[in-house]
Protein backbone atom coordinates (compact mmCIF):
# COMPACT_ATOMS: atom_id res chain seq x y z
CA UNK A 1 0.00 0.00 0.00
CA UNK A 2 1.34 3.35 -0.91
CA UNK A 3 0.55 6.54 0.79
CA UNK A 4 -0.13 9.24 -1.73
CA UNK A 5 1.97 12.29 -1.05
CA UNK A 6 -0.16 15.28 -0.37
CA UNK A 7 0.81 18.88 -0.57
CA UNK A 8 0.27 20.80 2.61
CA UNK A 9 -2.27 22.94 0.79
CA UNK A 10 -4.49 20.06 -0.04
CA UNK A 11 -7.33 19.65 2.40
CA UNK A 12 -8.61 16.27 3.23
CA UNK A 13 -11.93 15.80 1.49
CA UNK A 14 -14.87 16.44 3.78
CA UNK A 15 -16.45 13.31 5.05
CA UNK A 16 -20.19 13.25 4.70
CA UNK A 17 -21.62 13.79 8.15
CA UNK A 18 -24.75 11.94 9.12
CA UNK A 19 -27.60 14.17 10.03
CA UNK A 20 -28.20 12.78 13.49
CA UNK A 21 -24.52 13.11 14.31
CA UNK A 22 -24.51 16.63 13.16
CA UNK A 23 -27.56 17.53 15.19
CA UNK A 24 -26.00 15.97 18.22
CA UNK A 25 -22.78 17.88 17.73
CA UNK A 26 -24.60 21.14 17.39
CA UNK A 27 -26.71 20.34 20.39
CA UNK A 28 -23.79 19.69 22.65
CA UNK A 29 -22.13 22.86 21.47
CA UNK A 30 -24.99 24.71 23.16
CA UNK A 31 -24.20 25.35 26.79
CA UNK A 32 -27.78 25.58 27.99
CA UNK A 33 -28.80 22.45 26.17
CA UNK A 34 -25.91 20.61 27.77
CA UNK A 35 -26.92 21.92 31.17
CA UNK A 36 -30.45 20.71 30.47
CA UNK A 37 -29.20 17.30 29.41
CA UNK A 38 -27.04 17.00 32.49
CA UNK A 39 -29.90 17.92 34.81
CA UNK A 40 -32.21 15.51 33.07
CA UNK A 41 -29.61 12.80 33.35
CA UNK A 42 -29.25 13.56 37.05
CA UNK A 43 -33.01 13.43 37.48
CA UNK A 44 -33.16 10.09 35.77
CA UNK A 45 -30.30 8.86 37.90
CA UNK A 46 -32.10 10.11 40.97
CA UNK A 47 -35.20 8.26 39.91
CA UNK A 48 -33.29 5.05 39.36
CA UNK A 49 -31.47 5.24 42.67
CA UNK A 50 -34.37 6.81 44.53
CA UNK A 51 -34.58 4.23 47.31
CA UNK A 52 -30.88 4.42 47.94
CA UNK A 53 -30.75 8.19 48.05
CA UNK A 54 -33.90 8.94 49.96
CA UNK A 55 -33.07 9.47 53.64
CA UNK A 56 -36.49 8.25 54.79
CA UNK A 57 -39.16 5.86 53.61
CA UNK A 58 -42.08 7.20 51.70
CA UNK A 59 -44.58 6.26 54.36
CA UNK A 60 -42.55 6.86 57.50
CA UNK A 61 -45.40 8.44 59.35
CA UNK A 62 -44.51 10.56 62.34
CA UNK A 63 -47.58 12.44 63.46
CA UNK A 64 -45.93 14.36 66.31
CA UNK A 65 -43.48 15.86 63.84
CA UNK A 66 -46.01 16.73 61.18
CA UNK A 67 -45.89 19.98 59.25
CA UNK A 68 -42.45 20.95 60.50
CA UNK A 69 -40.50 23.28 58.28
CA UNK A 70 -37.19 22.55 56.58
CA UNK A 71 -34.56 21.56 59.12
CA UNK A 72 -31.33 19.65 59.33
CA UNK A 73 -33.10 16.33 59.68
CA UNK A 74 -35.78 17.11 57.15
CA UNK A 75 -34.30 19.39 54.49
CA UNK A 76 -37.60 19.88 52.77
CA UNK A 77 -39.70 19.71 55.94
CA UNK A 78 -42.39 17.19 56.75
CA UNK A 79 -45.90 16.77 55.45
CA UNK A 80 -49.23 16.45 57.20
CA UNK A 81 -48.42 12.93 58.28
CA UNK A 82 -44.92 13.83 59.38
CA UNK A 83 -43.28 12.18 56.40
CA UNK A 84 -40.04 13.51 55.00
CA UNK A 85 -40.85 15.68 51.98
CA UNK A 86 -37.36 15.33 50.53
CA UNK A 87 -37.60 11.57 50.44
CA UNK A 88 -41.01 11.73 48.89
CA UNK A 89 -39.85 14.20 46.27
CA UNK A 90 -36.96 11.94 45.38
CA UNK A 91 -39.05 8.83 45.12
CA UNK A 92 -41.81 10.69 43.32
CA UNK A 93 -39.38 11.53 40.55
CA UNK A 94 -39.66 7.97 39.37
CA UNK A 95 -43.37 8.10 38.70
CA UNK A 96 -43.49 11.69 37.60
CA UNK A 97 -40.70 11.40 35.07
CA UNK A 98 -42.22 8.24 33.73
CA UNK A 99 -45.62 9.80 33.46
CA UNK A 100 -44.18 12.84 31.79
CA UNK A 101 -42.01 11.07 29.30
CA UNK A 102 -44.27 8.19 28.47
CA UNK A 103 -47.49 10.17 28.27
CA UNK A 104 -45.92 12.83 26.12
CA UNK A 105 -44.18 10.18 24.09
CA UNK A 106 -47.53 8.53 23.49
CA UNK A 107 -49.14 11.79 22.46
CA UNK A 108 -46.22 12.56 20.19
CA UNK A 109 -46.25 9.13 18.65
CA UNK A 110 -49.90 9.39 17.72
CA UNK A 111 -50.66 13.08 17.51
CA UNK A 112 -47.80 14.15 15.29
CA UNK A 113 -48.35 11.56 12.56
CA UNK A 114 -52.05 12.29 12.57
CA UNK A 115 -51.38 15.99 12.21
CA UNK A 116 -48.83 15.36 9.49
CA UNK A 117 -51.13 13.16 7.49
CA UNK A 118 -54.16 15.40 7.91
CA UNK A 119 -52.28 18.54 7.02
CA UNK A 120 -50.48 16.99 4.09
CA UNK A 121 -53.39 15.28 2.40
CA UNK A 122 -56.08 17.75 3.41
CA UNK A 123 -59.50 16.89 1.96
CA UNK A 124 -61.34 13.90 3.27
CA UNK A 125 -58.46 12.45 5.24
CA UNK A 126 -58.09 15.74 7.00
CA UNK A 127 -61.78 16.00 7.76
CA UNK A 128 -62.03 12.52 9.16
CA UNK A 129 -58.87 12.65 11.25
CA UNK A 130 -59.48 16.08 12.60
CA UNK A 131 -63.10 15.43 13.48
CA UNK A 132 -61.93 12.33 15.32
CA UNK A 133 -59.46 14.47 17.19
CA UNK A 134 -62.20 16.97 17.92
CA UNK A 135 -64.33 14.22 19.41
CA UNK A 136 -61.47 13.08 21.56
CA UNK A 137 -60.68 16.59 22.62
CA UNK A 138 -64.26 17.32 23.62
CA UNK A 139 -64.26 14.78 26.41
CA UNK A 140 -63.70 15.80 29.92
CA UNK A 141 -60.32 14.28 30.57
CA UNK A 142 -61.61 12.78 33.81
CA UNK A 143 -64.30 10.84 32.06
CA UNK A 144 -61.78 9.50 29.63
CA UNK A 145 -59.56 8.60 32.52
CA UNK A 146 -62.26 6.80 34.46
CA UNK A 147 -63.26 4.96 31.33
CA UNK A 148 -59.71 3.84 30.74
CA UNK A 149 -59.50 2.72 34.31
CA UNK A 150 -62.59 0.67 33.69
CA UNK A 151 -61.38 -0.86 30.46
CA UNK A 152 -57.69 -1.34 31.11
CA UNK A 153 -57.69 -1.46 34.84
CA UNK A 154 -56.00 0.98 37.19
CA UNK A 155 -52.31 1.59 37.38
CA UNK A 156 -49.64 3.96 36.46
CA UNK A 157 -49.15 2.67 32.96
CA UNK A 158 -52.76 3.24 32.10
CA UNK A 159 -52.56 6.67 33.62
CA UNK A 160 -49.86 7.42 31.12
CA UNK A 161 -52.02 6.18 28.30
CA UNK A 162 -54.89 8.29 29.54
CA UNK A 163 -52.82 11.42 29.77
CA UNK A 164 -51.24 10.65 26.43
CA UNK A 165 -54.63 10.24 24.86
CA UNK A 166 -55.72 13.60 26.20
CA UNK A 167 -52.72 15.28 24.60
CA UNK A 168 -52.91 13.48 21.29
CA UNK A 169 -55.40 15.86 19.65
CA UNK A 170 -53.37 18.83 20.77
CA UNK A 171 -50.28 17.55 19.06
CA UNK A 172 -52.33 16.67 16.03
CA UNK A 173 -53.77 20.17 15.75
CA UNK A 174 -50.53 21.97 16.34
CA UNK A 175 -48.72 19.81 13.84
CA UNK A 176 -51.41 20.10 11.24
CA UNK A 177 -51.48 23.89 11.44
CA UNK A 178 -47.85 24.16 10.46
CA UNK A 179 -47.95 21.33 7.97
CA UNK A 180 -50.64 23.10 6.02
CA UNK A 181 -48.25 25.97 5.42
CA UNK A 182 -45.11 23.99 4.79
CA UNK A 183 -46.87 21.71 2.30
CA UNK A 184 -47.20 24.68 -0.01
CA UNK A 185 -43.46 25.28 -0.17
CA UNK A 186 -41.65 24.78 -3.45
CA UNK A 187 -39.20 22.30 -2.00
CA UNK A 188 -42.07 19.97 -1.27
CA UNK A 189 -42.99 20.04 -4.91
CA UNK A 190 -39.33 19.48 -5.69
CA UNK A 191 -39.29 16.37 -3.54
CA UNK A 192 -42.39 15.14 -5.31
CA UNK A 193 -40.72 15.73 -8.64
CA UNK A 194 -38.03 13.31 -7.59
CA UNK A 195 -40.58 10.58 -7.09
CA UNK A 196 -40.45 10.72 -3.31
CA UNK A 197 -43.12 8.71 -1.59
CA UNK A 198 -45.59 10.62 0.51
CA UNK A 199 -44.11 9.06 3.59
CA UNK A 200 -40.73 10.38 2.73
CA UNK A 201 -42.01 13.84 1.96
CA UNK A 202 -43.92 13.90 5.19
CA UNK A 203 -41.20 12.64 7.45
CA UNK A 204 -38.06 13.91 5.75
CA UNK A 205 -39.19 17.25 4.45
CA UNK A 206 -42.28 18.41 6.25
CA UNK A 207 -41.55 17.12 9.71
CA UNK A 208 -38.18 18.82 10.15
CA UNK A 209 -39.72 22.06 8.99
CA UNK A 210 -42.63 21.93 11.44
CA UNK A 211 -40.66 20.69 14.38
CA UNK A 212 -40.42 23.99 16.21
CA UNK A 213 -44.00 24.16 17.47
CA UNK A 214 -43.96 20.44 18.19
CA UNK A 215 -40.92 20.83 20.39
CA UNK A 216 -42.59 23.67 22.22
CA UNK A 217 -45.73 21.64 22.74
CA UNK A 218 -43.69 18.70 23.94
CA UNK A 219 -41.99 20.66 26.67
CA UNK A 220 -45.27 22.21 27.70
CA UNK A 221 -47.09 18.92 27.76
CA UNK A 222 -44.40 17.46 29.92
CA UNK A 223 -45.24 19.93 32.64
CA UNK A 224 -48.96 19.48 32.26
CA UNK A 225 -48.71 15.71 32.18
CA UNK A 226 -46.75 15.66 35.41
CA UNK A 227 -49.29 17.96 36.98
CA UNK A 228 -52.34 16.17 35.68
CA UNK A 229 -51.08 12.90 37.07
CA UNK A 230 -52.38 14.33 40.33
CA UNK A 231 -55.91 14.55 39.01
CA UNK A 232 -55.74 11.01 37.73
CA UNK A 233 -54.33 9.70 40.96
CA UNK A 234 -57.38 10.99 42.71
CA UNK A 235 -59.48 8.91 40.43
CA UNK A 236 -57.51 5.84 41.25
CA UNK A 237 -55.90 5.78 37.88
CA UNK A 238 -52.48 6.97 38.80
CA UNK A 239 -50.02 5.94 41.40
CA UNK A 240 -51.74 4.86 44.58
CA UNK A 241 -50.91 6.31 47.95
CA UNK A 242 -48.71 6.26 49.87
CA UNK A 243 -46.55 6.26 46.75
CA UNK A 244 -45.82 9.86 45.95
CA UNK A 245 -45.88 11.70 42.67
CA UNK A 246 -45.01 15.36 42.28
CA UNK A 247 -48.38 16.38 40.98
CA UNK A 248 -50.16 14.58 43.75
CA UNK A 249 -47.86 16.03 46.37
CA UNK A 250 -48.55 19.50 45.07
CA UNK A 251 -52.26 18.91 45.15
CA UNK A 252 -52.12 17.61 48.70
CA UNK A 253 -49.92 20.48 49.69
CA UNK A 254 -52.55 22.94 48.61
CA UNK A 255 -54.64 22.15 51.70
CA UNK A 256 -51.68 23.14 53.82
CA UNK A 257 -50.76 26.15 51.79
CA UNK A 258 -50.63 28.39 54.80
CA UNK A 259 -49.42 25.99 57.46
CA UNK A 260 -46.76 24.22 55.42
CA UNK A 261 -45.97 25.79 52.06
CA UNK A 262 -42.95 23.54 51.67
CA UNK A 263 -45.27 20.61 51.07
CA UNK A 264 -46.11 22.10 47.70
CA UNK A 265 -43.11 24.23 46.92
CA UNK A 266 -40.57 21.44 46.73
CA UNK A 267 -42.44 19.14 44.40
CA UNK A 268 -43.31 22.27 42.41
CA UNK A 269 -39.67 23.16 42.12
CA UNK A 270 -38.88 19.62 41.06
CA UNK A 271 -41.39 19.96 38.24
CA UNK A 272 -40.01 23.34 37.32
CA UNK A 273 -36.46 22.04 37.17
CA UNK A 274 -37.53 19.15 34.98
CA UNK A 275 -39.51 21.37 32.68
CA UNK A 276 -36.78 23.96 32.44
CA UNK A 277 -34.06 21.52 31.64
CA UNK A 278 -36.29 19.85 29.13
CA UNK A 279 -36.97 23.24 27.66
CA UNK A 280 -33.30 24.00 27.32
CA UNK A 281 -32.80 20.75 25.51
CA UNK A 282 -35.83 21.48 23.34
CA UNK A 283 -34.59 24.94 22.44
CA UNK A 284 -31.18 23.55 21.73
CA UNK A 285 -32.66 20.87 19.54
CA UNK A 286 -34.71 23.39 17.66
CA UNK A 287 -31.60 25.46 17.00
CA UNK A 288 -29.65 22.40 16.01
CA UNK A 289 -32.32 21.52 13.49
CA UNK A 290 -32.30 24.98 12.00
CA UNK A 291 -29.25 25.31 9.80
CA UNK A 292 -29.28 29.10 9.95
CA UNK A 293 -29.30 29.03 13.71
CA UNK A 294 -26.67 26.36 13.56
CA UNK A 295 -24.41 28.58 11.48
CA UNK A 296 -24.67 31.24 14.12
CA UNK A 297 -23.77 28.78 16.84
CA UNK A 298 -20.86 27.39 14.86
CA UNK A 299 -19.49 30.78 14.02
CA UNK A 300 -19.19 31.50 17.73
CA UNK A 301 -16.59 28.78 17.87
CA UNK A 302 -14.53 30.52 15.19
CA UNK A 303 -12.42 33.58 15.58
CA UNK A 304 -13.55 35.61 12.62
Amino acid sequence: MTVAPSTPMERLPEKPVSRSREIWQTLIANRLAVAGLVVLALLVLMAVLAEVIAPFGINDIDIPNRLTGPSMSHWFGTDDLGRDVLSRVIIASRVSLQVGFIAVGFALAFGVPIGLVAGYYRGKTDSILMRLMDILFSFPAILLAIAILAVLGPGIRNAMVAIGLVYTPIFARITRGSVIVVSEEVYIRAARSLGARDGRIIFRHILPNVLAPIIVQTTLSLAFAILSEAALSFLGLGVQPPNPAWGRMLAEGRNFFQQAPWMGIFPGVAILVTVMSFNFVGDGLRDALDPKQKSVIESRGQSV
Partner: protein
Amino acid sequence: MSEPLLEVSDLQVYFPVYGKGLVPRHINDVKAVDGVTFQVGRGETLGLVGESGCGKTTTGLAVLRLIEPTGGSVVFDGVDLSTLDKRDLRLLRKRMALIFQDPYASLDPRMSIGAIVGEPLEIHRLTQTRADRDDRVGELLELVGLSPDYRNRYPHEFSGGQRQRVGIARALATEPDFIVCDEPIAALDVSIQAGIMNLLEDLQDELGLTYIFIAHDLSAVQHFSDRIAVMYLGRVVEVADRVALYETPQHPYTAALLSAVPVPNPAVQRTRQRIILEGDVPSPLNPPSGCSFHQRCPKAFEPCPHVDPALRTTKRDHDVACHLHDPALSGAAGA
Protein backbone atom coordinates in the same frame (compact mmCIF):
# COMPACT_ATOMS: atom_id res chain seq x y z
CA MET B 1 -37.92 15.31 -35.52
CA SER B 2 -37.40 11.80 -34.31
CA GLU B 3 -40.13 9.65 -32.83
CA PRO B 4 -41.74 11.71 -30.07
CA LEU B 5 -40.93 10.92 -26.47
CA LEU B 6 -43.36 13.49 -25.21
CA GLU B 7 -46.62 14.55 -26.76
CA VAL B 8 -48.50 17.40 -25.20
CA SER B 9 -51.87 18.20 -26.61
CA ASP B 10 -54.22 20.96 -25.75
CA LEU B 11 -52.77 21.33 -22.29
CA GLN B 12 -54.65 23.72 -20.04
CA VAL B 13 -53.84 24.93 -16.55
CA TYR B 14 -56.18 27.32 -14.85
CA PHE B 15 -55.48 28.73 -11.41
CA PRO B 16 -58.60 29.58 -9.50
CA VAL B 17 -58.86 33.11 -8.17
CA TYR B 18 -60.69 33.49 -4.89
CA GLY B 19 -62.59 36.52 -3.77
CA LYS B 20 -62.50 38.18 -0.41
CA GLY B 21 -65.14 37.41 2.17
CA LEU B 22 -65.21 35.21 5.20
CA VAL B 23 -65.31 32.02 3.22
CA PRO B 24 -63.26 32.44 0.04
CA ARG B 25 -65.27 32.02 -3.11
CA HIS B 26 -63.98 31.02 -6.50
CA ILE B 27 -64.59 33.97 -8.79
CA ASN B 28 -62.28 33.69 -11.77
CA ASP B 29 -59.42 31.74 -13.30
CA VAL B 30 -55.94 32.66 -14.35
CA LYS B 31 -55.54 30.84 -17.63
CA ALA B 32 -51.83 30.31 -17.22
CA VAL B 33 -51.68 27.65 -19.90
CA ASP B 34 -54.48 27.62 -22.38
CA GLY B 35 -54.31 24.97 -25.05
CA VAL B 36 -50.65 24.17 -25.52
CA THR B 37 -49.70 21.48 -28.02
CA PHE B 38 -46.22 20.31 -28.91
CA GLN B 39 -44.07 17.25 -29.22
CA VAL B 40 -40.54 16.55 -28.19
CA GLY B 41 -38.62 13.83 -29.94
CA ARG B 42 -36.34 11.35 -28.29
CA GLY B 43 -32.92 12.83 -27.78
CA GLU B 44 -34.16 16.20 -28.84
CA THR B 45 -34.03 19.53 -27.08
CA LEU B 46 -37.04 21.77 -27.30
CA GLY B 47 -36.34 25.34 -26.34
CA LEU B 48 -39.21 27.16 -24.73
CA VAL B 49 -39.09 30.92 -24.74
CA GLY B 50 -41.57 33.65 -24.23
CA GLU B 51 -42.50 36.65 -22.26
CA SER B 52 -42.25 36.49 -18.53
CA GLY B 53 -45.51 35.17 -17.12
CA CYS B 54 -46.63 33.54 -20.32
CA GLY B 55 -46.88 30.11 -18.73
CA LYS B 56 -43.58 28.41 -19.39
CA THR B 57 -43.00 27.26 -15.85
CA THR B 58 -46.60 26.20 -15.52
CA THR B 59 -46.32 24.19 -18.73
CA GLY B 60 -43.21 22.51 -17.43
CA LEU B 61 -44.85 21.65 -14.13
CA ALA B 62 -48.00 20.38 -15.79
CA VAL B 63 -46.04 18.22 -18.22
CA LEU B 64 -44.48 16.51 -15.25
CA ARG B 65 -47.80 16.45 -13.48
CA LEU B 66 -46.45 18.45 -10.61
CA ILE B 67 -49.60 20.45 -10.93
CA GLU B 68 -52.82 18.89 -12.08
CA PRO B 69 -53.63 20.14 -15.56
CA THR B 70 -57.13 21.48 -16.01
CA GLY B 71 -57.38 19.84 -19.40
CA GLY B 72 -55.47 18.22 -22.22
CA SER B 73 -53.16 15.27 -22.20
CA VAL B 74 -49.52 14.54 -21.74
CA VAL B 75 -48.21 11.33 -23.24
CA PHE B 76 -44.74 10.33 -22.15
CA ASP B 77 -43.11 7.46 -23.98
CA GLY B 78 -46.49 6.18 -25.06
CA VAL B 79 -48.08 6.43 -21.64
CA ASP B 80 -50.77 8.94 -20.92
CA LEU B 81 -49.64 10.35 -17.60
CA SER B 82 -53.17 11.07 -16.48
CA THR B 83 -53.94 7.35 -16.51
CA LEU B 84 -51.14 6.50 -14.13
CA ASP B 85 -51.81 5.90 -10.49
CA LYS B 86 -49.73 7.53 -7.84
CA ARG B 87 -47.28 4.72 -7.56
CA ASP B 88 -46.59 4.29 -11.25
CA LEU B 89 -46.20 7.99 -11.66
CA ARG B 90 -43.76 7.99 -8.82
CA LEU B 91 -41.71 5.25 -10.40
CA LEU B 92 -41.78 7.06 -13.69
CA ARG B 93 -40.24 10.09 -12.03
CA LYS B 94 -36.93 8.34 -12.08
CA ARG B 95 -37.02 8.94 -15.82
CA MET B 96 -38.24 12.53 -15.70
CA ALA B 97 -36.66 15.38 -13.85
CA LEU B 98 -37.16 19.07 -13.33
CA ILE B 99 -34.67 21.80 -12.70
CA PHE B 100 -36.62 24.43 -10.81
CA GLN B 101 -36.64 28.04 -11.79
CA ASP B 102 -36.25 29.25 -8.23
CA PRO B 103 -33.26 27.39 -6.91
CA TYR B 104 -33.41 28.52 -3.31
CA ALA B 105 -37.08 27.95 -2.71
CA SER B 106 -36.80 24.48 -4.18
CA LEU B 107 -34.12 23.37 -1.74
CA ASP B 108 -35.26 22.13 1.64
CA PRO B 109 -33.61 24.59 4.00
CA ARG B 110 -33.11 21.91 6.61
CA MET B 111 -31.24 19.48 4.41
CA SER B 112 -27.57 19.60 3.63
CA ILE B 113 -26.52 19.83 0.01
CA GLY B 114 -25.25 16.29 0.12
CA ALA B 115 -28.58 15.03 1.36
CA ILE B 116 -30.45 17.02 -1.24
CA VAL B 117 -28.43 15.66 -4.11
CA GLY B 118 -28.41 12.18 -2.63
CA GLU B 119 -32.13 12.10 -2.12
CA PRO B 120 -33.16 10.88 -5.60
CA LEU B 121 -30.56 8.13 -5.33
CA GLU B 122 -32.05 7.07 -2.07
CA ILE B 123 -35.62 7.27 -3.34
CA HIS B 124 -34.99 5.10 -6.35
CA ARG B 125 -32.43 2.93 -4.61
CA LEU B 126 -29.85 3.67 -7.23
CA THR B 127 -26.92 3.09 -4.98
CA GLN B 128 -26.40 0.07 -2.82
CA THR B 129 -24.40 1.34 0.09
CA ARG B 130 -24.03 4.59 1.87
CA ALA B 131 -20.50 4.88 0.66
CA ASP B 132 -21.66 4.41 -2.92
CA ARG B 133 -24.17 7.12 -2.48
CA ASP B 134 -21.67 9.49 -0.97
CA ASP B 135 -19.32 8.84 -3.85
CA ARG B 136 -22.01 9.46 -6.38
CA VAL B 137 -23.07 12.68 -4.65
CA GLY B 138 -19.50 13.87 -4.74
CA GLU B 139 -19.32 13.03 -8.42
CA LEU B 140 -22.52 14.90 -9.15
CA LEU B 141 -21.39 17.98 -7.26
CA GLU B 142 -18.14 17.95 -9.13
CA LEU B 143 -19.98 17.56 -12.38
CA VAL B 144 -21.76 20.88 -11.84
CA GLY B 145 -18.64 22.61 -10.67
CA LEU B 146 -19.12 22.42 -6.94
CA SER B 147 -16.58 21.04 -4.59
CA PRO B 148 -17.69 17.80 -2.92
CA ASP B 149 -16.42 19.41 0.25
CA TYR B 150 -19.55 21.50 0.27
CA ARG B 151 -21.78 18.53 0.88
CA ASN B 152 -22.28 19.19 4.55
CA ARG B 153 -23.31 22.78 4.03
CA TYR B 154 -26.84 24.07 3.85
CA PRO B 155 -28.58 25.97 1.06
CA HIS B 156 -28.50 29.32 2.81
CA GLU B 157 -24.72 29.23 2.82
CA PHE B 158 -24.52 29.23 -0.95
CA SER B 159 -24.57 31.86 -3.62
CA GLY B 160 -27.41 32.00 -6.10
CA GLY B 161 -25.45 30.27 -8.81
CA GLN B 162 -24.24 27.58 -6.45
CA ARG B 163 -27.81 26.85 -5.40
CA GLN B 164 -28.85 26.58 -8.98
CA ARG B 165 -26.14 24.05 -9.60
CA VAL B 166 -27.25 22.03 -6.62
CA GLY B 167 -30.66 21.85 -8.29
CA ILE B 168 -29.06 20.71 -11.51
CA ALA B 169 -27.00 18.06 -9.77
CA ARG B 170 -30.15 16.78 -8.08
CA ALA B 171 -31.99 16.59 -11.38
CA LEU B 172 -29.15 14.64 -12.97
CA ALA B 173 -28.82 12.18 -10.12
CA THR B 174 -31.20 9.56 -11.44
CA GLU B 175 -29.83 9.77 -14.96
CA PRO B 176 -33.30 10.54 -16.26
CA ASP B 177 -34.39 10.27 -19.89
CA PHE B 178 -36.14 13.57 -19.87
CA ILE B 179 -35.46 16.81 -18.08
CA VAL B 180 -37.47 20.00 -17.97
CA CYS B 181 -34.86 22.67 -17.43
CA ASP B 182 -36.57 25.80 -16.17
CA GLU B 183 -34.02 28.53 -16.52
CA PRO B 184 -31.19 26.30 -15.46
CA ILE B 185 -28.45 28.77 -16.22
CA ALA B 186 -29.98 32.10 -15.36
CA ALA B 187 -27.94 32.68 -12.26
CA LEU B 188 -24.64 31.35 -13.54
CA ASP B 189 -21.67 33.16 -14.85
CA VAL B 190 -21.05 32.57 -18.51
CA SER B 191 -18.21 30.23 -18.03
CA ILE B 192 -20.23 28.00 -15.79
CA GLN B 193 -23.21 28.43 -18.10
CA ALA B 194 -21.07 27.09 -20.83
CA GLY B 195 -19.90 24.28 -18.63
CA ILE B 196 -23.45 23.30 -17.69
CA MET B 197 -24.64 23.41 -21.28
CA ASN B 198 -21.70 21.33 -22.33
CA LEU B 199 -22.46 18.88 -19.61
CA LEU B 200 -26.10 18.62 -20.63
CA GLU B 201 -25.08 18.17 -24.22
CA ASP B 202 -22.59 15.50 -23.34
CA LEU B 203 -25.21 13.64 -21.42
CA GLN B 204 -27.56 13.96 -24.33
CA ASP B 205 -24.97 12.58 -26.67
CA GLU B 206 -24.05 9.74 -24.38
CA LEU B 207 -27.44 8.77 -23.04
CA GLY B 208 -29.86 10.19 -25.55
CA LEU B 209 -31.47 12.59 -23.08
CA THR B 210 -34.45 14.68 -24.04
CA TYR B 211 -34.80 18.24 -22.78
CA ILE B 212 -37.30 21.00 -22.56
CA PHE B 213 -35.09 23.99 -22.12
CA ILE B 214 -36.80 27.09 -20.77
CA ALA B 215 -34.65 30.19 -20.82
CA HIS B 216 -34.65 33.85 -21.55
CA ASP B 217 -31.16 33.95 -22.88
CA LEU B 218 -31.99 33.43 -26.52
CA SER B 219 -28.37 32.91 -27.47
CA ALA B 220 -28.14 30.10 -25.05
CA VAL B 221 -31.48 28.71 -26.17
CA GLN B 222 -30.47 28.80 -29.72
CA HIS B 223 -27.17 27.25 -28.95
CA PHE B 224 -28.68 24.50 -26.94
CA SER B 225 -31.96 23.61 -28.62
CA ASP B 226 -32.87 21.64 -31.68
CA ARG B 227 -36.27 23.22 -32.01
CA ILE B 228 -37.69 26.22 -30.26
CA ALA B 229 -41.25 26.97 -29.20
CA VAL B 230 -42.29 30.51 -28.56
CA MET B 231 -45.07 31.03 -26.04
CA TYR B 232 -47.27 34.00 -25.61
CA LEU B 233 -49.99 34.32 -22.98
CA GLY B 234 -50.52 30.66 -22.33
CA ARG B 235 -50.20 29.51 -25.95
CA VAL B 236 -47.53 28.34 -28.27
CA VAL B 237 -47.42 30.87 -31.10
CA GLU B 238 -44.51 29.54 -33.07
CA VAL B 239 -42.47 26.37 -33.21
CA ALA B 240 -39.55 25.95 -35.50
CA ASP B 241 -36.10 24.60 -36.02
CA ARG B 242 -33.46 26.63 -34.17
CA VAL B 243 -31.96 28.08 -37.24
CA ALA B 244 -35.22 28.75 -39.02
CA LEU B 245 -36.63 30.55 -36.03
CA TYR B 246 -33.72 32.90 -35.81
CA GLU B 247 -33.34 33.46 -39.46
CA THR B 248 -36.95 33.61 -40.54
CA PRO B 249 -39.12 34.32 -37.56
CA GLN B 250 -42.72 34.35 -38.71
CA HIS B 251 -44.66 35.53 -35.72
CA PRO B 252 -44.35 39.25 -35.05
CA TYR B 253 -43.80 38.49 -31.38
CA THR B 254 -40.86 36.24 -32.18
CA ALA B 255 -39.41 38.93 -34.34
CA ALA B 256 -39.75 41.46 -31.54
CA LEU B 257 -38.19 39.08 -29.11
CA LEU B 258 -35.21 38.41 -31.31
CA SER B 259 -34.65 42.05 -31.92
CA ALA B 260 -34.24 42.58 -28.20
CA VAL B 261 -31.53 40.02 -27.59
CA PRO B 262 -28.66 41.89 -25.99
CA VAL B 263 -25.32 41.54 -27.67
CA PRO B 264 -22.19 41.39 -25.56
CA ASN B 265 -20.57 44.17 -27.42
CA PRO B 266 -21.10 47.67 -26.12
CA ALA B 267 -20.73 49.31 -29.48
CA VAL B 268 -23.28 47.11 -31.18
CA GLN B 269 -25.63 46.82 -28.25
CA ARG B 270 -26.00 50.55 -27.76
CA THR B 271 -26.84 51.36 -31.31
CA ARG B 272 -29.12 48.48 -32.12
CA GLN B 273 -32.72 48.97 -33.24
CA ARG B 274 -35.25 47.04 -31.19
CA ILE B 275 -38.82 46.45 -32.17
CA ILE B 276 -40.65 48.30 -29.45
CA LEU B 277 -43.90 46.64 -28.48
CA GLU B 278 -46.57 49.20 -27.85
CA GLY B 279 -49.84 48.76 -26.02
CA ASP B 280 -50.92 47.11 -22.83
CA VAL B 281 -49.46 43.83 -21.84
CA PRO B 282 -52.45 41.48 -21.72
CA SER B 283 -53.21 39.51 -18.63
CA PRO B 284 -54.06 35.83 -18.38
CA LEU B 285 -56.84 36.87 -16.04
CA ASN B 286 -58.88 38.23 -18.90
CA PRO B 287 -57.11 37.46 -22.11
CA PRO B 288 -58.07 39.65 -25.06
CA SER B 289 -60.38 38.31 -27.70
CA GLY B 290 -59.01 37.07 -30.98
CA CYS B 291 -55.26 36.86 -31.20
CA SER B 292 -53.93 37.60 -27.76
CA PHE B 293 -51.06 39.57 -29.27
CA HIS B 294 -53.14 41.85 -31.42
CA GLN B 295 -53.11 44.84 -29.09
CA ARG B 296 -49.33 45.05 -29.20
CA CYS B 297 -48.75 43.73 -32.70
CA PRO B 298 -47.28 46.20 -35.17
CA LYS B 299 -48.82 44.24 -38.00
CA ALA B 300 -52.30 43.62 -36.61
CA PHE B 301 -55.07 43.77 -39.14
CA GLU B 302 -58.76 43.21 -39.47
CA PRO B 303 -59.29 39.60 -38.26
CA CYS B 304 -56.80 39.78 -35.42
CA PRO B 305 -59.03 41.29 -32.71
CA HIS B 306 -61.82 38.82 -33.44
CA VAL B 307 -60.43 35.54 -34.66
CA ASP B 308 -58.07 33.43 -32.66
CA PRO B 309 -55.39 32.15 -35.04
CA ALA B 310 -54.69 28.42 -34.86
CA LEU B 311 -51.21 26.97 -34.87
CA ARG B 312 -50.64 25.72 -38.37
CA THR B 313 -47.68 24.47 -40.30
CA THR B 314 -46.46 26.99 -42.78
CA LYS B 315 -43.18 25.48 -43.78
CA ARG B 316 -41.61 22.17 -43.07
CA ASP B 317 -41.21 21.90 -39.34
CA HIS B 318 -42.26 25.45 -38.85
CA ASP B 319 -45.60 26.10 -37.19
CA VAL B 320 -47.01 29.48 -36.42
CA ALA B 321 -50.25 30.86 -35.06
CA CYS B 322 -50.69 34.11 -36.91
CA HIS B 323 -53.20 35.40 -39.40
CA LEU B 324 -50.37 36.90 -41.39
CA HIS B 325 -49.36 33.44 -42.37
CA ASP B 326 -52.82 32.15 -43.01
CA PRO B 327 -52.94 31.55 -46.73
CA ALA B 328 -56.62 32.33 -46.74
CA LEU B 329 -56.00 35.75 -45.29
CA SER B 330 -52.63 36.66 -46.70
CA GLY B 331 -54.20 38.85 -49.31
CA ALA B 332 -55.86 40.95 -46.68
CA ALA B 333 -52.59 41.34 -44.87
CA GLY B 334 -51.06 42.98 -47.80
CA ALA B 335 -53.90 45.43 -48.12
